[in-house]
């Protein structure tokens, strides 16, 4: 099964709608609650990164019996140093965004921690792609 959701850069009032839609699907498919709980963290952080840091993007979700594959891709500024961006606490979020409680620099580390596999690729000035896979049972 494949699903696709559009994510609008800069529009914080819509942030979370794609994650919430995917969560509902996983619940309907009776996926183990512990798996859903982890995946939801990764979905939300990935979605918020497009809202906070990019111009626009999409979330592509591919679910089969064994696993969920999430691909979040955007057009935007890209990430110049991915290793640095992955470090806990690193953030380039604006003061206004921080004031709302975003920009703690915990997004990418949270995504890595809550999925089985994660790969980030990016081209500066073009955009970023994040791919995450989580298996339903080990």
């Amino acid at each position, binding site marked *: 099964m494949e699903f696709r959701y559009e994510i609008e850069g800069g529009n*914080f*009032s819509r*942030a*979370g*709608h794609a*994650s*919430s839609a995917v*969560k509902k699907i996983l619940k309907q498919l009776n996926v183990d609650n512990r798996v859903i*709980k982890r995946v*939801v*963290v990764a979905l*939300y*952080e990935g979605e*918020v990164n497009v809202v906070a840091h990019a111009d626009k993007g999409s979330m592509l979700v591919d679910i089969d019996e064994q696993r969920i594959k999430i691909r979040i891709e955007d057009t935007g500024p890209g990430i110049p140093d991915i290793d640095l961006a992955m470090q806990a606490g690193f953030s380039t979020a604006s003061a206004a965004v921080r004031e*709302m*409680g*975003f920009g*703690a*620099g*915990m*997004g990418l580390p*949270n995504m890595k*921690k*809550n999925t089985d596999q994660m790969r980030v690729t990016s081209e500066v000035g073009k955009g970023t792609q994040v791919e995450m896979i989580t298996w339903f049972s080990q």
Partner: protein
Amino acid sequence: MKVRELIEKMGLRLFSGELCLDKDISGGYVSDLLSDVMGNAAEGQVWITLQNHKNIMAVASLKELAAVILVKGQAPDTDTMAHSIEEQVPILGTDQEAFETAGMLYQLLNQ
């Protein structure tokens, strides 16, 4: 303890979500950082925060929190309240600071 009893015992304001006050409270979490709550809060907890914008409801709902308590007299935006009703997570409020609020909640849950 249910959210309903918590409101009564702590004298909290109820901003929205009066139809979903029968959730059991499993604990509490205090933070104003959304990623911190996303990564570390657990289902059924009450979230104590200063943040009053709409995004707190997305987080509260995704994490299946029992309720949100806004401290220091903060009130939610209308958008936030609408989202609270939709997502069935009540928003409560107090004039006290996070420290006192967390202290009271801790005591109530551990007696």
